[in-house]
C-alpha cells in the first residue's frame, strides 16, 4: 500500500470531478423529486444546467488534469474527453427533447431527469475506465438506470414489455460479459487493461500461442459489448426496446449509451486485446458485415419509424465496426468520428419522430406522407438527418462512412467494404422512401403544425452538428485524430 499523499488525493479527485459533480446533482434532483419539492419543468431545466456545468467542469479538467488516477483504474485522456463530450451532448439533447414527453407522464416526472443523469454518470465513468471492474460497474450503472427509463411509461404496455425484455437480456449479457472478464482475469491475474495486454503478450512470447481460454474470454466480452452496442446478432432486444421505450430514451439509448460502449470497446480491444488481435479481428469483421446486412435488410420492411430507425442503428454500428478492423489510430479515429456524426444524425432523427408523434400521435411511416407541406421545417430536418445516416455528402454521415471504409481498405478488407457499400445502397432505399413519403405527394394533407420550441432548438443544434461535421470537419478530425493517436499504439 502506498502511503497517503495529499497531492495525489487531490489529483485523483480532481480528475473525477465532472462525474462527482454530475452525481451530486443527480442525487439532488432525484431526492427533490422523491420528496416532492419540485415540479418537473424545473427539474428539466435544472438537469440541463447540471449537464452544462458538468461539461464546463470536464473542459476544465481536460485543460488542467491529465493522465491516470486512482492507481491507473481511471484515466482522463483525450479519448475520454472526446467521448465525454459526445455523451454529454447526447444527454443535453435528450434532456431537452424530453420536455414534452415528461410533461405527459402521470407521476415521477422529476426522477426521470435524475435517472438520465445517473445513467450519464455511468457512461462517463465507462469512458474513462481502464480497469475491468470499474468498467463493469460503470456499465451496470448506466444500464440499470436505462432499464428503468425504458419502462418509464408505466401505463403503456409496450413500454413495460420493452423494460422487461431489456432487463432480462441485459442481465444475461451482463453475466456473459462478466464471465469473460473472470476468465481474462484468471488468465492474466489482473483486471487492468494495460497489464492484461502485457500478460497476453508475455504468454504469447513464451509459448508461441495464446492461452486456450483467451478466445473464449474475448468472445464473451465481445458478446457483452455487442449487446450494449446492439450489434448483430446480439441486437435482438434493440428493435423492441426502441419501439416500446419513450422516444427520448430511445434516442438516448441509441446515441449516448452506444457511444459509451464504443469507447469502452475501443479501450478493451484496441488496448487490452490488441496483442490478441488475430483472435478477434475476423470475428469483428464478420459481425460488422452481419450487422450491416441484417440491419439494412430488415429495416426495409418496417412500417414503424422507430423500429426502422432501430434496425438502421444496428446497421450503423456495423459500419462503425468496419473501422475496427484497422486496429490503429486510423481505425480508432474513424470509429470516434463516426460515433460523433451518428450522435447528431440519429439524435436528430429521433427528435423528429418525437416532434411528429407529439402532434399526430403516430409513429407509422405511412403517416409521414405529405409532411413537407404540413411542417416544412420538420420535414427538412428529418430529410437532412436521414441523408446523413445514409451517408450522402455534404453531411457528417458521408465523411464518417468515408473514414471507416478508408480504415478498412487500408488494411485490405475490400470484401468488407464492398458489403458496406452494397448495403448502404439498400439503406439509401429505405431512407429515401421516407423522404419520398414526406415530399413527393402532390395533394395537400390535413393542416400544418408547429414544432415545440425546445425541440426546434434540439433539431437546429443537431442539424448544425451534421452540417458542420460534414462541411468543416477539419478541427474535429484533428482533435479526434490526436486523441486516437494518444491511446492506440501505432502499428
Amino acid at each position, binding site marked *: 500500500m502506498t502511503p497517503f499523499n495529499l497531492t495525489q488525493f487531490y489529483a485523483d479527485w480532481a480528475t473525477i470531478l465532472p462525474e462527482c459533480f454530475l452525481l451530486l446533482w443527480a442525487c439532488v434532483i432525484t431526492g427533490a423529486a422523491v420528496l416532492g419539492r419540485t415540479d418537473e419543468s424545473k427539474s428539466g431545466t435544472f438537469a440541463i444546467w447540471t449537464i452544462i456545468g458538468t461539461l464546463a467542469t470536464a473542459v476544465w479538467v481536460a485543460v488542467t488534469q491529465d493522465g491516470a488516477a486512482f492507481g491507473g483504474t481511471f484515466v482522463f485522456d483525450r479519448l475520454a474527453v472526446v467521448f465525454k463530450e459526445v455523451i454529454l451532448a447526447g444527454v443535453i439533447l435528450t434532456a431537452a427533447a424530453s420536455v414534452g414527453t415528461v410533461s405527459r407522464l402521470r407521476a415521477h416526472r422529476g426522477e426521470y431527469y435524475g435517472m438520465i443523469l445517473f445513467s450519464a454518470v455511468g457512461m462517463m465513468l465507462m469512458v474513462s475506465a481502464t480497469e475491468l471492474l470499474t468498467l*463493469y*460497474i460503470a456499465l*451496470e450503472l448506466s444500464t440499470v438506470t436505462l432499464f428503468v427509463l425504458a*419502462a418509464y411509461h408505466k401505463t403503456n404496455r409496450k413500454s413495460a414489455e420493452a423494460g*422487461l425484455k431489456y432487463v*432480462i437480456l441485459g442481465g444475461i449479457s451482463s*453475466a456473459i460479459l462478466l*464471465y469473460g472478464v*473472470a476468465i481474462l482475469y484468471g488468465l492474466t*491475474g489482473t483486471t487492468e487493461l494495460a497489464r492484461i495486454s502485457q500478460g497476453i503478450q508475455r504468454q504469447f512470447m513464451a509459448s508461441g500461442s495464446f492461452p486456450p481460454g483467451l478466445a473464449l474470454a474475448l468472445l464473451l466480452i465481445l458478446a457483452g459489448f455487442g449487446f450494449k452496442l446492439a450489434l448483430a446478432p446480439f441486437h435482438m432486444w434493440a428493435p423492441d426496446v426502441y419501439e416500446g421505450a419513450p422516444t427520448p430514451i430511445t434516442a438516448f439509448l441509441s446515441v449516448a449509451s452506444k457511444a459509451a460502449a464504443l469507447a469502452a470497446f475501443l479501450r478493451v480491444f484496441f488496448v487490452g486485446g490488441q496483442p490478441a488481435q488475430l483472435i478477434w479481428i475476423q470475428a469483428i469483421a464478420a459481425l460488422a458485415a452481419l450487422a450491416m446486412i441484417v440491419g439494412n435488410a430488415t429495416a426495409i420492411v418496417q412500417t414503424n419509424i422507430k423500429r426502422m430507425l432501430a434496425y438502421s442503428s444496428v446497421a450503423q454500428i456495423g459500419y462503425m465496426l468496419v473501422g475496427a478492423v484497422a486496429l490503429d489510430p486510423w481505425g480508432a479515429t474513424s470509429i470516434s468520428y463516426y460515433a460523433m456524426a451518428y450522435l447528431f444524425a440519429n439524435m436528430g432523427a429521433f427528435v423528429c419522430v418525437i416532434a411528429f408523434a407529439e402532434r399526430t400521435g403516430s409513429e407509422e411511416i405511412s403517416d409521414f406522407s405529405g409532411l413537407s407541406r404540413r411542417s416544412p421545417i420538420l420535414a427538412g430536418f428529418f430529410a437532412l438527418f436521414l441523408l446523413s445516416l445514409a451517408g450522402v455528402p455534404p453531411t457528417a454521415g458521408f465523411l464518417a462512412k468515408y473514414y471507416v471504409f478508408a480504415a478498412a481498405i487500408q488494411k485490405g478488407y475490400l470484401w468488407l467494404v464492398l458489403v458496406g457499400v452494397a448495403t448502404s445502397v439498400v439503406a439509401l432505399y429505405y431512407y429515401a422512401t421516407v423522404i419520398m413519403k414526406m415530399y413527393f405527394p402532390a395533394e395537400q394533407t390535413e393542416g400544418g403544425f408547429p414544432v415545440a420550441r425546445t425541440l426546434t432548438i434540439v433539431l437546429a443544434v443537431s442539424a448544425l452538428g451534421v452540417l458542420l461535421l460534414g462541411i468543416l470537419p477539419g478541427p474535429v478530425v484533428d482533435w479526434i485524430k490526436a486523441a486516437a493517436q494518444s491511446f492506440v499504439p501505432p502499428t
Partner: protein
Amino acid sequence: MEGIGLTHYLTLSAVVFCIGVFGMLTRRNAVGVLMSIELMFNAVNITLVAFARYVTPATITGQVVAIFTIAVAAAEATVALAIVLLIYQHHRGIDVDRINFMKW
C-alpha cells in the same frame, strides 16, 4: 493431483452457468427466468473466487469483483422485479411467452 483443484471449480462454475442458461431459456415464468440469471451470476462468482485463490493468492482482486458483482446483481434484480410487477399489471400474468406484443 491431490484433492480439489482449480479445474474442479471452473468445471462447477461452467456447469452452473449452463444450468442458468438452460433455465433462462426454458422457464416460462419471468421470476424463474430471473432466478436463472442469478445462477449465471453466481457461476461467474465461483470462477472469480477460484481464480483469486489459485492464480493471484497475494491479492484479493477476485473477491472484490465477486462482492461487487453480488451487489450489482441485487440492484439489477430489484429493477427487474419492479418491471415484472409492471408486466403483471398489464398482462395479468408473468408468462414470458405471452409478452410478445412487439415483434418483426
